[in-house]
């Protein structure tokens, strides 16, 4: 049973229940939820709140975990807000094996470092890619088309994305 002191905030967004936890407690909170019956990690991702006008988010990156209880058919969303360069959070691959690839993808796309992940490498982008494409400050259409004649390398992502 997840104890109330782990939960910073709880709410409902468009009918979906969610709780917010402190980033250092994510592993503990997800472990408690797993005990409670939320055994399936539906997905894990990150949202970049760079330059959000509402100002309601405590940090730039929001790591989102969606868990499902297959007996009661309930879903719960767990949020953790992180900052830093690179942003860091604990890996949960030991609790939920599917998190392994999800965390690699989130690292690849947002540069979130998952501490304790066994193989935190790029999964979708080429290994020598610079930058993290799904960050809001990474430009769309910034890369030169491969095989064009004017460029020496197709790698034109900004050094500091």
């Amino acid at each position: 049973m997840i104890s109330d002191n782990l939960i910073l905030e709880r709410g409902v967004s468009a009918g979906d229940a969610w709780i917010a936890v402190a980033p250092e407690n994510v592993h503990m909170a997800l472990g408690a939820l797993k005990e409670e019956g939320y055994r399936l990690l539906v997905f894990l991702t990150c949202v970049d709140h760079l330059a959000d006008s509402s100002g309601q988010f405590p940090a730039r990156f929001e790591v989102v975990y969606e868990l499902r209880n297959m007996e009661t058919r309930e879903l719960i969303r767990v949020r953790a807000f992180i900052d830093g360069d690179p942003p860091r959070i604990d890996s949960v691959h030991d609790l939920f094996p599917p998190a392994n690839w999800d965390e690699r993808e989130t690292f690849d796309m947002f540069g979130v470092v998952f501490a304790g992940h066994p193989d935190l490498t790029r999964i979708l982008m080429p290994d020598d890619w610079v930058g993290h494409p799904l960050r809001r400050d990474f430009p769309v259409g910034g890369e030169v088309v491969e095989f064009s004649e004017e460029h020496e390398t197709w790698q034109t992502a900004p050094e500091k994305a």
Partner: protein
Amino acid sequence: MTTEIGQGITVTKTGEQGAFGGELLTINFGPHHPSTHGVLRLIVDLDGEQVRRLKPVIGYLHTGIEKQAEALRWQQVVVVTDRHDYLSPPFNNLSYALAVEKLLGVEVPPRANALRVIMCELTRISSHLVWLGTSGIELGASTMLMYCFRERDTILDMNEEISGFRMHTSYIRPGGVMADATPRFLELLDRFCNQMPGNIDEYEALLTMNPIFRSRTIGIGRLPAEDAKVLGATGPMLRGSGVPWDLRKSMPYSGYESYDFEVATSDLCDCYGRYLVRIKEMRESVKILRQALDGLPDGPVNIDDRKVLPPPREELETSMEAVIHHFKLFTEGYTVPAGDAYAAVESGRGENGCYVVSDGTHKPRRVKFRSASFVNLQPLERMAMNHMVADMVAIIGTADAVLGDVDR
């Protein structure tokens, strides 16, 4: 030591001792191997012919759909959702549309729901047909492809009739569907519902008792129910392991609770079990199609909200307000209240979900596609372990990953 043995295959000896006295060989399988159904690369450690380690390498078909979605307006994103799981676009459309509708707080009319169900079930059949045809080729029944693509073509004809496109239909969109079904579409659908059960009998006559097919699939790629759950598998992968989990029944959406159908499961937990599940699912889909067609409610196919969907063409000539709405919608788009929502649908491959985050503007802040193939590829090592290389082909086949869906 790495040796090039032609056809792009390199072999590395790892130096580790295998059970048969020889060294383990590391083989690069793919990314351009025809049985990988796209561009999937597998790094396989072989002990003789047996698989001892397997590591899928993905990303060869990454198209940045999620990034692109952030640069498009809400109604434009529908077009890119088509393209991740390119064998079943309506499921992608539907999960996105349901998520956006959740944020907008709107319910689509009953006729739109029925048309959505019809398109989804047709696509489930066509997606299973592609799977069945290609799996047949890989497992020594090359005529299967001809039979399967014959029926798939009638489905593509129906797609064309209802949406104008054969594959990337973009038919389902937030607020309803693109257009009402034409009489010809309903006629084609009626004919299809009458013919399809007989066609499925034909496929079964070719494969179900076929000794070659059976020996290539029975006992191959076992995935016990507990493992399937732990590894997060969904769809036929999970039901083929005997777990009756189907979002259409378990967490109904779009009016699936009103249709009478069974959830196909198999306790065999192997490639053959997954084959049986998909065959049964096609039969159940035909049942749903028949019910949806017979009980197709009358009424509008879109919500009556001019801020989200354009006004009908005929109104543009008589109403100034309609022109303004039309202009605003196609220059600025609509805004969606800030918040986030997740909606999931049961696609041919499993749970196809969409998580959207809105910051209250006319473009999404984040669109995340939870694709079934991405998760269903991870049990591959568990399933292929200690099997022969040739069995790996059957196992990749029954995992039914669409690489566009894996890499998005």
